[in-house]
């Protein structure tokens, strides 16, 4: 992806919207993701550990990034906002995109 590509220019709100869609597609939640506050606990909402792995793979593909080992933990995926922070951080850390 070029330096002025979509991912780096995407706003925080845009990132969150996209993450919300991915959680809806891959999270297998018991409720409608559209009604979920940004800081709601996704595990309480029914996100299983197996679905977390699927969600991680989907996020990596959608944003063209790789979640490093240090972030492969439950806290990274605890809420839409938490995922958003990690995605924003990882996109900022790879300026060559």
């Amino acid at each position, binding site marked *: 992806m070029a330096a002025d590509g979509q991912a780096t220019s995407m706003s925080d709100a845009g990132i969150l919207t996209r993450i919300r869609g991915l959680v809806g597609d891959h999270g297998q939640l018991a409720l409608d993701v559209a009604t979920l506050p940004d800081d709601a606990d996704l595990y309480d909402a029914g996100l299983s*550990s*197996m679905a*977390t*792995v699927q969600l*991680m*793979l989907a996020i990596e593909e959608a944003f063209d990034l790789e*979640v490093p*080992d240090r972030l*492969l*933990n*439950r806290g990274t*995926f605890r809420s839409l906002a938490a995922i958003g922070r990690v995605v924003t951080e990882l996109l900022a850390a790879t300026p060559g995109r």
Partner: protein
Amino acid sequence: MSGDLLQELFAGRHLVPSGIDGLYGRGPLFEAVVTRLEAMIDRMVSADGAEVMRFPPGMPRRVLERSGYLKSFPDLAGAIHCFCGDERAHARLLATLEAGGDWTAATTGADIVLTPAACYPVYPAVAAAGPLPPEGRLIDVASWCFRHEPSRDPARLQMFRMREHVRIGTPEQVRHFRDAWMERASGFAAALALPARLDLANDPFFGRGGKLMADSQRDRQLKFELLIPVGSAERPTACMSFNYHQDHFGQAWDIRAAGPGGAGAVAHTACVGFGMERLTLAILRHHGLRPEAWPAPLRTALDWPAA
């Protein structure tokens, strides 16, 4: 025992090499310890009222699939493949063999996989019996198990024996079972005069996603192990494990508690496993290869015959 534990066990014919790491025969002392450990466990659990079930070391492929094993441990699974061709295909197989090629390419998957842990066949058997009785069920199971993880660590075998108690019931029944066994295990290790400690643990889930799974398992305190130094003091070996599956197997097999007028809530499950070879290795590693020199309490615990 010190130095290269595996070489020492080979030299004494306690383990018999096969040419494949982690696939060994067992000598007379090794096997006698396994047998007496089994009897010791029998005595320990005799008042528990467990239903005994024994399965062969192969199980239906669908049991592995429906249990979710391939999602978590695809790299450890072993599937049986057989030759199912005609005479022409047989001739090609022999020609391939003669040429040093891979004749196994001519085989196809059978409907049997190798059992990765003794308890896997228990869940479908229990599910088939209908809703659980109010007190739940307690099963005593044992099997040879297979995990594809070749290693020179004698405590990491590819084929080994596992004895388990499996509890199926309400979350309260199942958690109580696991907690009680963790208490009991410390006494078991003490009776064998082995230095042991209990610790939080995780399964070796596959891949990068597996790190997430492991973190989640630890976070929820679902797995504990009884650790005893065997090959190394820094990385002691899990000789027993205490696993709370929550409703994983209950969901997979639709195991239901008894409810008003029929089936009720999805059952929870837990299992406690003894690694028979690992416990045997721990005894040989800590007390030596001469039973006549073992401490008297250990000989008593194992009901070891007088010389």
